């Protein structure tokens, strides 16, 4: 009995070893073949680990990336959106791109943390990784080629500067933020908190998960809790700002005069609301940086050194007139 068990164990080990060998052989073979295919078709294969439907900004950004990395420009883009914003599905897509042996990977992470091990695997496979929009935490620049994004801290501090100018005597304000833990939420909070004057009172900071519906429900309760004594709302995206505007109207107040609402992103819907006076200040978070991304990917594949942090320039809209002027040419 004892003997057979031992023999079985050894046999099992040997089998496992054989399988490991054959697997290694398999993966070696397949990566060779994809490399060959890549050079034959003369298209650069790029895997895009994306976020998927989230809001107007995200749609504009991902459409722009997909349009830029077109077959005409010499790219074969594989688009892999996350399943309902789940990071696990992104990691799965990322690893399968590595196994497939793509030439480069571009990544818009849903969460900032937890990317070290897959990024290391990409490095071992010598696949350059370009981060779009959201960065990673901890920010280890040796793990990726470049991070292309508008400057969240700068944008929200420009919003705070506008608020400082509007309310020289200070005001009571509420922050509607995205889901806790995202790097964009942390950055937008940081830029705002560092710049806003000391005579402003922060009544509350609540997450509304980027959603119009939740923002409306959250802000109607905040208005009741403070007897409508709120002068300013800093909504960290357009959708939440629009939800807050609905709650203000529902309470019988006038957005723009009774409560001023600041939003970040600059989608068409927000600019229309700004032109109608329902929002007061919209800071653009420029989503159109597909061309920059192409340059970076090409440079990385050519072996050139690329700057690890590239800031996309953005503008702000502080009046209905500015919004009306920008609306006809707005792409998103």
């Amino acid at each position, binding site marked *: 009995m004892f003997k057979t068990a031992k023999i079985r164990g050894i046999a099992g080990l040997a089998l496992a070893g054989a399988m490991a060998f054959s697997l290694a052989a398999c993966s070696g073979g397949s990566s060779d073949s994809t490399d060959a295919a890549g050079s034959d078709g003369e298209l650069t294969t790029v895997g895009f680990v994306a976020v*998927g*439907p*989230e*809001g*107007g900004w995200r*749609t504009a950004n991902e459409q722009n990336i997909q349009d830029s990395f077109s077959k005409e420009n010499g790219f074969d883009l594989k688009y892999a959106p996350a399943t*309902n*914003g789940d990071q696990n599905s992104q990691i799965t897509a990322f690893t399968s791109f590595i196994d497939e042996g793509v030439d480069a990977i571009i990544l818009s992470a849903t969460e900032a943390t937890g990317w070290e091990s897959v990024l290391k695997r990409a490095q071992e496979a010598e696949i350059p990784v370009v981060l779009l929009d959201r960065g990673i935490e901890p920010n280890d620049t040796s793990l990726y080629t470049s991070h292309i994004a508008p400057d969240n801290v700068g944008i929200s501090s420009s919003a705070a500067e506008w608020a400082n100018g509007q309310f020289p005597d200070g005001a009571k304000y509420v922050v509607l*933020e995205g889901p*806790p*833990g995202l790097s964009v939420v942390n950055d937008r909070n940081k830029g705002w908190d560092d710049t806003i004057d000391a005579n402003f009172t922060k*009544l*509350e*900071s*609540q*997450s509304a*998960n*980027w*959603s*119009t*519906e*939740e923002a*409306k*429900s*959250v802000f*109607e*309760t*905040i208005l*009741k*809790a403070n007897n409508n004594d709120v002068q300013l709302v800093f909504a960290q995206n357009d*959708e939440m700002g*629009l*939800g807050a505007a*609905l709650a203000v109207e*529902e*309470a*019988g*107040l006038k957005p723009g005069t009774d409560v001023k609402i600041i939003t970040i992103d600059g989608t068409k*819907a927000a600019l229309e609301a700004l032109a109608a006076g329902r929002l007061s200040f919209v800071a653009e978070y420029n989503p159109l940086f597909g061309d920059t991304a192409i340059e970076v990917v090409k440079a990385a594949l050519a072996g050139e050194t690329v700057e690890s942090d590239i800031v996309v320039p953005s503008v702000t809209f502080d009046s209905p007139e500015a919004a009306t002027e920008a609306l006809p040419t707005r792409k998103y």
Partner: protein
Amino acid sequence: MSQASSPSRGSVVTTIVRQPYIWAVVALVLLLVINLIKDPGYLGISVNSSTGNLSGNIIDILRASAPIMMIAIGMTLVIATRGIDLSVGSVMAVSGAVSMEFMSNSGDGSVGVAVTAAALALGVSALLGVINGVLVSVVGLQPFITTLVTMLAGRGLAKVITAGQNTSATNEPFRWIANGTVFGFPVVFVIGALIVAVVAVLVRRTALGLMIESIGINPKAARMAGIRPIGILIAVYIVSAVLAGIAGIFSTASVMTVEVAKTGLSSEMDAILAVVIGGTSLAGGKFSLTGSVIGALLIATLDKTIVFLSIPSSATPAFKAVVIVIICLLQSQRVRALFARRKAISTPTPPQSTPTRKETVSA
């Protein structure tokens, strides 16, 4: 103590305490009291001078509870048949997507367009319900797997309908469903309450409720007693999907936007929680519609309380979880205590049961 008092008084106390949702009522009252301590005017309802509607925190809670109530009622019936419907959140998104897409394309903001949009949305929802029901009853797939598939497929469908975009529309009658008032009361809550009443009459004044329960308690025995489970199961899944469709209309009409990735997201959890809090067992069988309505009210109150008390957003899921865990624990303890009491009555009092009984009475 209860044994010492007169039997009639004792039975009144036990019937009240015996209601499975008693702890949900206690928690609901407790949350309102906490809010009252923070702001003594919390329960006050005033007439808004500029809009002429009733306004107040209670009104907000009633309004927020309406969609949860709809999916919780549907979920109760499904759970009573030993099933589960994970697809309700996705059906909400589909229904919202259908109505918003239709209204944004058809342009004019007339009542006719609003009614057609709602009818279309409910029709598509019912279709998803038929798929669930047929797969569960005729094909015999497990409800968990079946509705998990429709949950994933449903959100995909919503994204296809709107081409992945968050779609807005303008239609005053449709917006009125979620934001309007009748005699000062929110329309959503009135519609919700009416629908609950209709469902309650249907299942409690006819044999339907008994049949649903018998399928949940023992499907074989039910079949032998002459109940045809296929028809009832399909009907139950259709009702659940249509109610989810109504919930989807409620929640998208409130902002007149469907957010395909967010509308109804994890609403199935809210619905299941409302059912469990209401005292219906996930093992099927006996169900309580009143309990589920109270559960829905509790969840809406909890969501509003979190914001009202300015609990930091990073701590909100934990706060919600703690409250719900406490309620569930209290319920299970009560069940165990009742069990011990029954044992004590049927057998000559074992010594351990005395402290347990004392606990029940004091609690």
